[in-house]
């Protein structure tokens, strides 16, 4: 039983990888730059934002380009991952009707695509860290841990969103606007300490910001993040994962009827 279980999960992992390969191929189907674009994209954002805000908003932030880039790659992982995973069930309607694969696979493959993109963007991240001569201390171990929890959060969020998208026509529009709002409330390109106190408190409870904050503290500033953020990191990701999984399991069968 155990053996057959692991065999089938191995098989599903294979399916996820194939779906991911298809996604990546489709996304960059005709693009000359291909996967290289995943590496360059965050650098382009970094260059423009640093250029525009070189005189203000960047005040009081040490290594502003690296500060922005850290936030940007994590924000992209969560935002792109969740908004592409959101439509996974609708987009793969035909495959879902024809096969008996677990439905989770379609959502997971989108998240996996985002994770692959994130790892590619880490290449440019490392280059930027070297250019700015940021010394990596032992606290940087927190970075992979942070990414692990961020991914867990992403998976839970994606499960919930993909179900929501099936049941509500406007879900995609609403989430698109929500992402834009979250972009401004995640402390991506400004110093959170200069905000109004109420806004600061609000931002400090935004899960997107929590993951970004832990990464910045541990990698850029070689300090252990405040407990406030470490506890939230775990609670948000585990909580969201459980929440998403439960919703998915509960609504899964209704999804098929609806589709």
């Amino acid at each position, binding site marked *: 039983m155990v053996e057959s279980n692991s065999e089938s999960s191995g098989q599903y992992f294979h399916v996820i990888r194939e779906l991911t390969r298809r996604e990546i191929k489709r*996304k*960059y*189907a*005709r*693009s000359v730059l291909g996967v290289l674009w995943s590496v360059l*994209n965050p650098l*382009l*954002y970094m260059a*423009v*934002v640093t*250029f*525009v*805000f*070189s*005189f*203000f*908003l960047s005040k009081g932030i040490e290594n502003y380009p690296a500060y922005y880039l850290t936030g940007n790659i994590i924000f992209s992982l969560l935002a792109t991952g969740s908004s592409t995973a959101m439509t996974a069930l609708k987009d793969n309607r035909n495959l879902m009707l024809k096969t008996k694969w677990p439905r989770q696979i379609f959502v997971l493959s989108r998240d996996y695509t985002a994770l692959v993109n994130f790892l590619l963007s880490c290449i440019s991240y490392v280059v930027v860290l070297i250019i700015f001569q940021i010394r990596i201390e032992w606290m940087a171990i927190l970075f992979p841990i942070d990414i692990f929890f961020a991914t867990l959060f992403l998976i839970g969020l994606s499960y919930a969103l993909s179900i929501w998208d099936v049941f509500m*026509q*406007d879900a*995609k*529009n*609403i989430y698109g*606007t929500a992402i*834009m*709002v979250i972009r*401004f*409330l995640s402390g991506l*390109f*400004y110093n959170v300490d*200069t*905000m*109004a106190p109420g*806004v600061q408190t609000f931002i400090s409870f935004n899960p997107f910001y929590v993951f970004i904050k832990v990464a910045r503290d541990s990698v850029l500033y070689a300090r252990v993040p405040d407990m406030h953020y470490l506890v939230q990191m775990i609670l948000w990701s585990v909580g969201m994962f459980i929440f998403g999984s439960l919703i998915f399991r509960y609504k899964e069968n209704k999804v098929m009827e609806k589709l």
Partner: protein
Amino acid sequence: MADKNTRQYIFVIRQLARRDVTRGNSSKFLGQIWNVINPFIHMITMVLVFSAIFENSIPNYRIYVLTGTIIYSLYNSGTTGAMKALVGNKRFLIRTRIPMNVFIIEKVYVAFIHMLYSLIGYVILLIIFQVPPNPCMLLVIPDIALSLVLIYGIGKILAVINVYFADIQYFYRILMVLFMYGSAIFYSADRLAPAVQAIINVNPIYISITMARNCVIGATCPNGIMWLTLACYAVGFYLLGSYVFKKGTQDVVAKL
């Protein structure tokens, strides 16, 4: 004869617009309202985050931001809509003999209608925040008119590119996010470094936003350089767009 054709095309545009507004990706009610309230949601977010920094240095900060988000939305939804005009209307293009630029005009028209609805909320906020009415406000009309011509020209180019190179949608989305940072929507351009100011001064979205702010909040006529720059953009992109569209759509049906 020409007149009859024009009337026919206006009819087609309005029918297509109705389809876009009511069907699209969303339900009837929210689909209508979503594009209208989007600039307000953006404004509230930006004001919430940045009022501590800018409220003292920028008079009427809320209206200042809202002017920016409404015009940015017009550019964003107009050009993005037009980009999908040819690919999205595949069946019509193949089956009917409606001139193709009708589909572009229709998308710009929909974005314009959404903006007009947003303007109702804008006027209400002008009254609430006690911005006194002044005759210069009328100059917003030619400002928007030039912007629409510019959007139409850019939209034509994007629509053609989209037929041959679907990735443009992805790249253009990134470009528009960058424009959101680079159009002084939530900050004042004097705070920027001199080199950045020089660049932002030739950004057409920034120019049309600034002109509208001058008219509404500053109660002054925008200066001649801005009018001239925006007019050059509009005429230039109109001509370029028409040229690209003519060349690019010759074998577009075969390609689709």
